[in-house]
């Protein structure tokens, strides 16, 4: 994501990425810092990452978008290039109140990239358009979590 994060967060994420790259465990103090900056969203986002809920969807055109399977079973769409998530918390806490930097889904996108457990999925260009339009936020994953894409859902 080319979107801007505060420097302290960028630094934290890159240190976490370095730890993962070296095959080390992410130090506890990094996780504490994450919780300090993002509050309860940090735990929820880490939980989403643990459950491999983040999928990077791309089409032959090269355009990409993220989908995050929320804890409630709903799927939210996050843009790959800037901060936007289709969830209500993003609309309320991030956009309207401005008291959060990111929603847990956007944070999970960042963390899944750091921890390299982002799922990958290829769809057609037309399907990617539909995903970007966010008209259908139903899960693109089967209920059992496999990544077969259901074209009939579109």
């Amino acid at each position, binding site marked *: 994501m080319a979107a801007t994060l505060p420097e302290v967060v960028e630094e934290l994420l890159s240190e976490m990425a370095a730890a993962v790259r070296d095959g080390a465990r992410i130090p506890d103090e990094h996780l504490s810092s994450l919780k300090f900056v993002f509050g309860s969203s940090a735990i929820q986002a880490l939980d989403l990452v643990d459950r491999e809920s983040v999928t990077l969807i791309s089409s032959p055109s090269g*355009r990409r978008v993220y989908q995050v399977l929320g804890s409630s079973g709903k799927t939210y769409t996050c843009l790959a290039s800037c*901060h936007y998530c289709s969830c209500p918390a993003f*609309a309320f806490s991030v956009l309207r109140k401005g008291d959060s930097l990111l929603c847990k889904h956007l944070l999970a996108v960042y963390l899944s990239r750091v921890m390299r457990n982002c799922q990958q999925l290829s769809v057609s*260009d037309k399907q990617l*358009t539909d995903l970007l339009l966010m008209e259908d936020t139903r899960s693109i994953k089967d209920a059992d979590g496999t990544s077969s894409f259901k074209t009939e859902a579109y």
Partner: protein
Amino acid sequence: MAEALRRVLNAGRAAGPGVDGAAGPPLLLLGAPRSAQTSLLFAAALEAAGEGRGPVLFLTRRPLQSLPLNTPAARDHWRLQKIRFQYPSSVPELLQLLASAHEAPGPAPSLLLLDGLEEYLAEDSGAQEAAYVAALLLDTAAYFSGRLGASGSCGLVVALETPKEGDGDAPHLTLLQRYFPAQCWLQPDALGLGQQHCLRASLESGQLSPRVEWSVTFLPNGEMAVTPWPPQASKPSPDKTSPSAGSQSSTLVCDNLSGPQFPLDSILTSETGADSKT
């Protein structure tokens, strides 16, 4: 943009600190009146079209009634043909166009322009909708940049007319400013008293760049003159192009601002200008 618009305002001078091919941060063109915004966007489109890079995508809610500029560049068929006008008439149409941009054939644009964002946002005042429009504009420009690869990136300039002073802020302005780190304000200039229509353009491209200002004057004969502000060297008057400012090419004839007394040269005979004549 921000580079295409910066080059328009810096007419005749180097592009500044920008790296070759770099488009600069997404830019919001703010202020009033709308016609001046349209002229500047069109000037930026012509500037980008003349660079030998990708085409320019110009989005506006309704077809331009007249060509906003009447400069040699605006009469250049080759440049005009590189500007693709599209007229999404509603928010859903705009979103559809942006979300499906990767399905369109042809080379990726090097500049994406949207005129009159306020006309789209007025339809629906939800914060999430406004953020979605802004974010999808950024996402589309980022996708075009990815397609352009090493040959450069795709700039983004969005014009938003703000209410006159005292009438409050434009809806969602604070929200939009989050997505557009660079902003160029057009404000009436005291020097514009009398017949001249004079604006001050103030460009703020981010935290680290200093504010840069220009004086944009619309002369009674329909020309648009751009000079740096404050005036440099020999104190050029704002109603003339100043050779000392290196602005020989900065006089632009602008006829949608000066009314019907300045007939069009039938330059833009079609919506795209593809079959225009000089």
